[in-house]
């Protein structure tokens, strides 16, 4: 299952969200993610791993993993960054 599909499952299924919160790694690996992908998407709020607005790692690593996983190229590869609102 792709990262995108997993995020959509978590967004629309409270039971899945509970299952994820109780055992995140088991939840993700059961859906076929690699260790690297699991670390990236369950890594909480590490600014260097999770936040496109702070780090180049979003574009260099996270974005690659996400887009490769969903097998869909994101058009805006131009370091879009935005403030909270």
């Amino acid at each position, binding site marked *: 299952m792709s990262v995108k599909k997993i995020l959509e499952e978590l967004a*629309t299924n409270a039971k899945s969200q509970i299952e994820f919160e109780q055992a995140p790694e088991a939840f993700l690996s059961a859906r076929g993610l690699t260790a690297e992908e699991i670390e990236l998407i369950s890594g909480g709020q590490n600014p260097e791993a999770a936040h496109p607005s702070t780090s180049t790692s979003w574009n260099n690593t996270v974005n690659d993993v*996400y887009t490769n996983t969903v097998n869909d190229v994101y058009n805006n590869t131009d370091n879009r960054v935005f403030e909270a609102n």
Partner: protein
Amino acid sequence: MRWLSHARYRGFTLTEVTASKGSLTIVGLGIKYMSHLTAETRTWIESADQVYYVAVEPFSADLIGELNAASTPFPNYLKGEPRGKTYQLWTKLLVDDVKQGKHVCAAFYGHPGMYVDTSYQALEQLRNEGYTVRMLPAISAESCLFADFGEDLSAEGFCSYEACQILYEERIWDLTTNLIVWQIGSVGVGDENIHSVDKSALQSLCHLLIERYGEQHQVFIYEAAQFATQKPRIDATTLAELVDFPMSAKSTLVVPRKEHAKRRMQQN
């Protein structure tokens, strides 16, 4: 996903089902991917003749494309120019399309009515010329903060300012209420380089806050979770250490009223 099956308004766009002239609907995507998209926002995205959007991550862009094929991101920030020029460009896109008779949807991350110049520029221009403009409520970073912080920041009143308003506009606020400072990580950055912190502006802001609260006053850097797999970031520091504290353009600063800071730290 089940709710995606509702997409595309039974195969008709709004222009096909209404005879009215063009209109603009301004919506927000919220902060957390998919989770914060409201039912009414979804239907306006699905039904528009043209959708322009700003998304902070690729999934939201994909999702909007799934909901409505006639969607395109707003042009990127103009390099080396004040961000205001980009916002004017975005406004022109919206206004021109509406004047061509299209029902346009403009989608912004977060809340479309909070710190989004384009929303109000387009709203004013089009309403002055007799067009219909709707703005829908959405989940903002502040909404997330109130949900995540663990205590009611509004219980004793609170003040909320964008960081530049405090730094450049000599604001006076009530120190006995909680203070929320938006976009502290990009204070002083006026062009497209939002990811680069302006240390000198941040230093000035910190000095200003230290004058009022003292160096050891506890404050919090907050960042809402962007995905369902993440937790929000709520990190404590002091005003003395704030200038070197990790933060991003997504960071919001919470300055508890003086008597309040210690109590929260003890709870943690």
